[in-house]
């Protein structure tokens, strides 16, 4: 059963001149993406800065308003409903944020932080708050005594656990994990990743896992989508994509990831590091200025993502040019 589906999602930011307020440009942060996630599965969303992956997460959670497109949860369109209605829906979609140091209100005790979602969505009766908080803390590996403390009394890893506990409090079906381990120490990252995987199994959760590190993505995802400048350039089952990457960008990305083995062979694919500004997305295939395999057609026509196989790629190398005249 499909838990979530995103169709033609777009987000454009207008840049306004500070002086006159006139629109001076547009940033197409997310430029028409499509994907779906089955229940209980994890889709990894990987990309570098400016790819739009974090924005995508926020769009699904409506922390940003989509400019266009549709988001469906269990078949129901949640992108057009009112704010008030959506707030009720938030029970089902939660987010684990990147920076554990700033994501919790440092003036609230852990107990308060965890009670609030319980209260808003009436998960349990007020008399059971304390017990539920203790249960949540237990799930994420913290002690009951911690509920009276303040966030700054915990380490980064512990705070991230609290963030996860808060996301779990509403008993959601779908969780967006926005770079949940990037800000943590290496030795702690694995703990959190394991925790997330355990929770997924136990509560049959569906994840959208956003990261920039390919190694982490590989471990948690069932499927992976690679984003570049607001578009998905390649998407497929994770084994497939990692073993047989098709898109030149994906290949460059993989080759660039450092491998903790001094004797591993490295076939570095070099890209020039002139990342285009999101204000000025190149015409045609947005990757063509950097692509080592760029062809003439790439400068003109945007390749489409073919949507019917288990491994799709948006690149002219894999489509006959005839197909792209739609």
């Amino acid at each position, binding site marked *: 059963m499909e838990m979530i589906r995103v169709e033609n999602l777009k987000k454009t930011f207008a840049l306004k001149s500070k002086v006159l307020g006139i629109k001076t440009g547009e940033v197409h942060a997310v430029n028409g993406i499509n994907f779906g996630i089955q229940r209980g599965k994890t889709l990894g969303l990987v990309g570098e800065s400016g790819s739009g992956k974090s924005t995508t997460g*926020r769009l699904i*959670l409506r*922390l940003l308003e989509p400019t266009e497109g549709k988001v469906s949860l269990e078949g129901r369109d949640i992108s057009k409903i009112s704010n*008030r209605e959506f*707030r*009720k829906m*938030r*029970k089902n979609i*939660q*987010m684990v*944020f990147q*920076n554990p140091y*700033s*994501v*919790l*209100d*440092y*003036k*609230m*005790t852990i*107990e*308060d932080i965890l009670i*609030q*979602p319980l209260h*808003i*969505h009436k998960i349990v*009766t*007020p*008399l059971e708050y304390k017990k539920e908080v203790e249960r949540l803390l237990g799930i994420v590996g913290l002690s009951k005594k911690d509920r009276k403390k*303040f966030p*700054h009394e915990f380490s980064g890893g512990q705070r991230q656990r609290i*963030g996860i506990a*808060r996301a779990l*409090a*509403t008993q959601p079906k779908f969780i967006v994990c926005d770079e949940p381990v990037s800000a943590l120490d290496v030795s702690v990252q694995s703990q959190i990743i394991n925790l997330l995987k355990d929770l997924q199994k136990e509560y049959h959760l569906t994840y959208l896992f956003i990261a920039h590190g390919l190694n982490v993505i590989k471990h948690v995802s069932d499927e992976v989508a690679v984003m570049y400048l607001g578009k998905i350039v390649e998407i497929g089952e994770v084994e497939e994509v990692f073993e047989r990457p098709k898109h030149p960008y994906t290949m460059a990305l993989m080759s660039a990831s450092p491998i903790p083995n001094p004797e591993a062979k490295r076939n570095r694919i070099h890209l020039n590091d002139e990342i285009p500004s999101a204000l000025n997305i190149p015409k045609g295939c947005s990757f063509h200025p950097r692509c080592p395999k760029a062809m003439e057609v790439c400068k003109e026509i945007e390749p489409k993502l073919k949507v019917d196989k288990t491994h799709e790629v948006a690149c002219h190398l894999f489509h006959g040019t005839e197909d792209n005249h739609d």
Partner: protein
Amino acid sequence: MINLLKKINFPLLLGGILVLIMLFAYFFPQVLTDKNPNVEEAAKYIEVRRDGEWVEEFATRPFPPNRENIMGSDEAGRDIYTRIIYGTRNTLHVALLVVFLRILVAMPLGIIAGMGVKSVSLFINMFNTFFTTIPKLLIAFVILNINYFRNLEIDRAILAFAIVLTVIGWSKLASMIEDQTALIMEEDFIEGEVAVGKNPLQIGVQNLLPHLIPHVISFLFIEIGMVLFLLAQLSVLTVFIGPRRMPLAEAFQGNFEMAFEPEWGSMLARAPEVIRLYHDRMWLTLFPALAFFFGVTAFNLTGEGLRIEFQKRNSQIVSFIRKGFFLASPKIYWMQLRSFKIYWKPVLGKTLAVLLILGYFSYPAEASQHFFDIERAKTHVEELSDEKYEGRLVGFEGGNKSGEYIIDTLKSYGLKPWEESYTQEFNTLDESGGFFERLIVEEAYIEVYQGEDAEVYHINEDFIIPALHKAEMHLEEDTNEAGWIDYHGKTITYHEDHTSVKITDEQQHIPLIDIEDHGDIHSQLYVRGQGVWAHSATHNFPTVSNPRGISYHLGILNTDLYDRELIDTYSHNRTLIIPFEDLRQSLDGADVEMALFVKPPKLPSYPGRNITAIIPGENWEQEGPRELIVIGAPYDGAYTGGREAFAPAITATPAATSLEIARVLSAMEEPLEKTVMFIFWDGEYSFYPFRIRGSFQYTASQRTFQQADFPYTYIDVGYTGNESVDQLEINIMHGQKRSDTSYLIRTSLSQRLQELEINYRMFDASQRWARGSVSRALYGMNMNSQFSMGFGSNYYPYINRLEDKVESINYEKMEGTGQIIVDSITMNSHLKEPQN
């Protein structure tokens, strides 16, 4: 040790101490000073230090700092230290109220603007810009300098100032809150809160507020400091809170207003002059300025200290407050109640807490212990307004009878006489040959001659006689025709500019005098009548002289007011008549011949009688001085026998009120500590000053108490049923009392009046614009009293008018008067407890 010192929050500590001192002065001023902030001393011996020794000097106000007045006195002779202490309350009230109102407005607007609503942000910005370009001080000054504001009573003034200063100054606070809110909204955790599903209101309350509070609190306290400063500035421009009055006469340098209520701002109002001219009187300004300095410092420091405290990360206080909301939530309570078996402890605890709180809040408005029964008072009014008393004119049968009624009533309540008799009698006839004796003219008529015909007009139908020439009255009682007083003459008018009129022939001339229609004939007769009654001519009325050099004996007053108002008859040095419509027209123009025939009037045949009676208190039997509470009320009126359309109800209200008070007090189970004395004044109703007034007779005679033996507080009951004025007017006079008690009586009286929800207005006799609600009795009795107050007025035009009927009396006001007097005597500790 040093660690401990580092941990102490010094600003908070210091600021807190200073604020506590101020709060102490706010709540318990009597502890800090035993003087009365309003008592003025003109001159006295003071002890000052010269060359290390205390030396006694004589000084006039303003007194420099001396042993008794440690900060000296102001130009009216009021102790500055005491005024600063009492002034703390008023000054702080304004400052706190202003800041409170500002927060009320600024907080929600600032938060909304900071959360992104542009229109509100624009609004705040506009206000800010406006008040940056135009200085707040200027606007505040212009607005608050309007007369309306200047003359407000202190409570209203505080509110008015607060509102004006709020409107002027809220935007800066809002702007700061907006900026802070915007900053906080940028923080990462806000995103998390949205993701959890909070609506903006919840985010605002649960997340924003705890972060905003440190900034807001510290800013608040600093704001208090700024407002205090603004008040100081305004005062220097003579805009301060509270009513003003002109200083009592005497050698003053210049004419300036002084504040009545103690309040720091008003004390600074003289600063420019003092600094510029009176260098040797710096204490006048120095100490009030220091008071402001103290206040501003206290709040600034405390604000700073609180900010430091709130910024500490481990604020269990904030979490505790949050918990508090959880505990207090009614929903939770209800749920716990339903599962009573499990949660019986918290349920009981909360119920108890709620009951206690409710109990505390419903407690203070203490119920009156004794009730003034307005119905009974009404029966007295009805009785005394009855025809049989004929208006209760002093010295005549009706008046005497009414006195009997009062005495009988008092006896029935069990009141004892003062010394042996219930009455003090005085002469109603002036044997020294003076005027203003009351007269009753039973018969008189006027003949107007037109050619052959003579039109006859009768007294009380066509005219009345307010004054009768004394020399021409016969004192015998024979009534033969020849015994009637008669006049013949011709009418004349006079020039506009009221110069004297010379007459060439010898005939008696009768001037026609116009009286301006000011609505109150008594005042007209009195004021205008300065000329009428005086021996010499005034600018109002001409002298009419004929070759014989005799000024006129008879004058005709032209006015419309006769039929609306009861005007009684007095003896004087000329005779005056007021013609009604028809007669007036007949007499209109000059050269009309007429004749007046007056039957010799009835003279007072009874003495005037002040009725005195007491309810002995606990102190009645003791040795030494016995403190009294004296309640005085006039019971006489004006003769209505001739003109029965008039019902003299209002003039009966004081006595009625007083009688009912007597009943209530005498019916008390436990006696009062002080003895209560009732005096019912006779002969008070008169629009002429002094002489045949009961109160004058009383105080001028030897009957007045020796101050040392019977220190007394005097309460005057005036015409409280007066319909024309909604507010109960109260006059406060300080008598001899110098200590703070009189001030406290005043403030506690105000409080009780508010508790009883009586619409009142309080004057201080020394106030600049105290209205004429002062009775002669009050003035007379005040001089030797410790403290006096007068309720109601005796001045208003409804008295003895056609509208003055039993039904038209404002019984609510009367009841209020009665009740407040009863409550003050039985419940107000400052009044009922002996001071010695």
